[in-house]
């Protein structure tokens, strides 16, 4: 048990992308899904108890170590480069895609009241948005959706973790 937790620790440490439970089960086949989740919970608690500089998080359908948010000022010095910031226009466009997906460009244009061609292209290049198909209407316009990278960048487990738009309305009220 302790040994298996250490194995998971090593696997996640060595993985470049969030490691899925399915992948862990391939390596530790003696556990079922619940078993792995149990180990992960203990592992996450170990790391929390240690009060170190990073912790275990479930992001984008997998598990990965992330540095503690409050330590960001120091890590940023190490990274030297300026953090990638998204413009308000890009964030608004991304929000429409995230909540309305799959969505065609014309609908995003309508919601934002401007042509989103440029910002949408930028989001595609940043791999936050991708083409997910074509809408079955005349002209077969491209449908857009968010990517796994979107979940990673915004530190979301999955899309259901986004606050609903009605919740947002309550905030305004």
């Amino acid at each position, binding site marked *: 048990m302790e040994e298996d937790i250490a194995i998971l620790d090593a696997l996640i*440490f060595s993985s*470049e*992308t969030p490691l899925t439970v399915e992948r862990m089960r391939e390596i530790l086949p003696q556990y079922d899904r619940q078993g792995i989740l149990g180990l992960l919970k203990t592992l996450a608690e170990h790391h929390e108890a240690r009060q170190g500089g*990073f912790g275990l*998080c479930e992001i984008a359908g997998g598990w*990965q*170590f*992330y*540095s*503690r*948010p409050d330590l*960001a000022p120091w*890590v*940023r010095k190490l*990274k030297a*480069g300026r*953090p*990638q*910031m*998204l413009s*308000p*226009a890009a*964030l*608004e466009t*991304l*929000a*429409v895609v*995230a*909540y309305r997906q799959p969505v065609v460009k014309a609908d995003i244009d*309508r*919601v*934002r*009241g*401007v*042509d989103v061609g440029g910002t949408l292209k930028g989001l595609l*290049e*940043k*791999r936050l948005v*991708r*083409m997910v198909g074509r809408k079955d209407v005349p002209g077969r316009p491209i449908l857009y959706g968010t*990517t*796994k990278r979107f979940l*990673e*960048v*915004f*530190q*979301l487990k999955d899309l259901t973790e*986004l*606050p609903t*738009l009605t919740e*947002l*309305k309550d*905030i*305004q009220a």
Partner: protein
Amino acid sequence: MSYEIKLDVFEGPLDLLLYLIRKNEIDIYNIPIALITRQYLEYLDLMKALNLDLAGEYLVLAATLLHIKSRMLLPVPEEEDGGTEDEAGDPRAELVQQLLEYQAFKEAALQLDRRTLLERDVFKRGAPPEALPGEEGEETPIEADIFTLVEAFQRMLSQLDQADLMEIDLERISLADRINEIMDSLALRRDMTFAELMGEQITRQRIVYTFLAVLELMKLRMIRVYQAASFAAIRIFIVGEE
């Protein structure tokens, strides 16, 4: 008339309209169209005076506002079918709906920005500043066509160590296997060069199957293939999310 100038440019006509509504502390469901239209047009003049690039969308909304204003001046036609409907008959209704929707997404965008963000608030272990496709050096990728793929294929073949050719086990590989292997590697890496896809044991058969698999995956639109320049490395990107 003194202007309160908000220098950061509005994200669009709806943004400007919302700003005016907030500034005047107006009930969004009961917009005094005359007042708002006047202020909106004043802002457009101001933006012109400041030489800000005035996008056509601002003028479209100005026209919409004027249209609503004119409709509100006209008497409401007395019952057409089922009596007068105050709500549905309000010429402002559509605009209000649009404003509310935009406001919701504007708030959603702010919420996104308030999250802990990767590479801003949290960091992955040893993650290099992620090179995005299109941002590697000054190269801009172009979509590779069949000929560049064939060229890459021939180049791989020419690099073959002839002596190894005798060792091939013909039964060991199938096109379906190669396709699955490639998708598996791409699921982990997201993008790879053609050479990386080949892996270490380069045999003529493996190259052929890799090449066929790439063509098949392109046809199925499961991957996209880019090349930055002629003879540069061919990069293969996964299209789907698993």
